């Protein structure tokens, strides 16, 4: 009989026009006879309903040591769902806690079935996690340990990279040539538009900032020197590297990270490929080959940007500008810029690939890998750039 009665409820649920119909309000009545307490449930206990508070019952159960038995009556109970279940579980848990006998046999069959499912697997107490508050000393210590681990994993990764480069030199490294070309395509030609835009604008900005000051002395023509030297020695390569760390470093980390999530890297290992050679080498080679070219290209774009400002606003002719530029820039300036940029290329490939290979096995881990790849790239680039600038300065190059 209960089954058919439940069945009607499901029909009600099915029919959307009935679904919107108002539900009966929920009610709880407590009837106590001797040592038995009867809990009478009425109304529709569905998710959005206002339910009466259970507190009176729970407190009565708490103080009433006379209560030995809890029974339910559900003749007036209409619809029910998880809302009723959670209340029942609270009452039953409390009852069990108080050593009160809880008689669930008068509940609808469906509820009984669900209750038996809920209590089928006891709660794993050891599974519960407790927020442990760490003391500041522990936090600092943990931080230091993490930093040490990080440093050692970086060293290990660099070591492995060097070994695989060694294998490459001896002609023993195994990777697919097509992968190298695909990576070159990705790092080079595909990056040209964004590199064009950014370095052009950087040249433009450099020229503007400098020109306003230089024009005060009528020395506009020196803008050419400033933009030319600034782009070739510093900004061209630097901006190209920053762009590539956001564009390619993150892509490497995300690619390798996703491969980690899909067990593709494990598959490569079992097939006898070394991921360092098969995945990291082509990426690194591609970047090392491409970065100097991108650097030169960025330099050119910057100089063009600078020339437009100077010619357009500061009364210098194109010819003068380029004459001045070619006089100011020497081969060594170009070489400094290109060398720096090659180093940046190695750093980008290194940190991108390292973060990808260290990636955990979930979607959020891939996100973290990409983020930390970009952060690592930029930190490395800035540190390397300042070091190399300092060295060049000391050596008088």
């Amino acid at each position: 009989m209960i089954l058919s009665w439940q069945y009607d409820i499901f029909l009600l649920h099915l029919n959307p026009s009935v679904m919107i119909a108002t539900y009966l309000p929920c009610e709880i009545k407590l009837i106590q006879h001797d040592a038995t307490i009867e809990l009478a449930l009425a109304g529709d206990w569905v998710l959005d309903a206002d339910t009466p508070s259970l507190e009176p019952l729970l407190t009565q159960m708490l103080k009433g040591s006379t209560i030995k038995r809890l029974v339910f009556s559900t003749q007036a109970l209409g619809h029910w769902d998880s809302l009723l279940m959670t209340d029942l579980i609270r009452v039953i848990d409390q009852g069990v806690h108080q050593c009160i006998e809880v008689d669930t046999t008068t509940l609808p069959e469906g509820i009984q079935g669900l209750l038996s499912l809920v209590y089928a697997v006891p709660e794993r107490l050891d599974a519960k996690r407790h927020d442990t508050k760490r003391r500041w000393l522990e936090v600092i210590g943990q931080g230091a340990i993490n930093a040490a681990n990080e440093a050692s994993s970086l060293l290990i990764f660099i070591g492995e990279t060097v070994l695989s480069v060694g294998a490459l030199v001896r002609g023993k490294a195994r990777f697919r040539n097509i992968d190298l070309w695909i990576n070159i395509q990705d790092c080079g030609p595909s990056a040209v538009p964004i590199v064009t835009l950014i370095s052009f604008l950087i040249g433009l900005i450099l020229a503007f900032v400098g020109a306003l000051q230089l024009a005060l002395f009528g020395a506009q023509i020196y803008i050419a020197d400033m933009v030319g030297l600034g782009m070739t020695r510093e900004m061209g390569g630097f901006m190209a590297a920053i762009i590539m760390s956001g564009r390619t470093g993150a892509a490497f980390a995300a690619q390798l990270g996703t491969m980690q999530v899909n067990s593709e890297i494990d598959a490569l290992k079992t097939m006898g490929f070394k991921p360092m050679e098969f995945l990291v080498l082509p990426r690194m080679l591609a970047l090392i080959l491409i970065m100097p070219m991108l650097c030169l290209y960025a330099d050119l774009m910057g100089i063009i940007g600078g020339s437009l400002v100077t010619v357009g606003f500061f009364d210098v002719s194109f010819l003068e500008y380029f004459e001045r530029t070619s006089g100011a820039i020497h081969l060594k300036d170009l070489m400094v810029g290109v060398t720096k940029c090659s180093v940046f290329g190695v750093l980008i490939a290194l940190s991108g690939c390292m973060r990808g290979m260290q990636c955990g096995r979930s979607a959020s881990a891939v996100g973290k890998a990409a983020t930390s790849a970009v952060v690592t790239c930029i930190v490395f680039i800035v540190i390397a750039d300042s070091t190399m600038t300092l060295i060049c300065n000391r050596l008088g190059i």
Partner: protein
Amino acid sequence: MATPCLTIRNMTMAYGDFVIQRDLDFTINRGDIFIIMGGSGCGKSTLLMHLIGLQHPAKGQVFYGTESLWEADINVRQRILQRTGVLFQSGALLSSMTLAENIALPLSQHTKLGAMRIREIVSYKLALVGLAGFEDYYPAEISGGMQKRAGLARAMALDPEILYFDEPSAGLDPISAKLLDDLIRSLRDNLGSTIVMVTHELASIFAIGTNSVFLDADIKTMIAGGPPKQLLAESSDPKVLRFLTRGLMEKQSLHKINIQEHNEL
């Protein structure tokens, strides 16, 4: 009396010009455990996508009760789909959230329940699938089978009338698969939900399926339907028989296996 809960009318599914299945016509009744079966690549999962509102049919209709899913406007469709829950093949739990947060997500978005009540419901749902106490775990920290059960808990968060399962027992050992089958059946019995399941796990199909549709990849349409056991006993289509008997085609030898399998089940 069987009440139709989901009706598929004359539906064609296609990616661009490439037709996956055509002329699908079947009804899923309330309280059914309905199996969508067929060989690999026949479009079972695609069919599921069409039922749960992720892909638009090229032709035809999906009716929830009397409402057409794809002719309804977006709000109505949302409301219809809110009455369904989906367990994806690998659980599809959001990896940046704990199990509790995963299950609480639909509750906090679609109901007006308080935080305390949501916590209680989350614990209850986890207990239902045998994961009591695992509230604060991240999906990556538990096993595949547990992820699947947690996914089920999330699918059930809003007490859906229809629960969809995409290959529920894929990647589970036979005992876990059997336990999951038992769980699915008892949820159906106790909650009165309708279950729609994409699977090619024969053990599950015969153990819990009450109705089914068989999709064929070659002629791109459904070639059989009905209770799986009845299909095995009565169907004369060699493709269906080969599928349901793991390739043992001959009717005679099949008959014995039939009886054996029935006894085992």
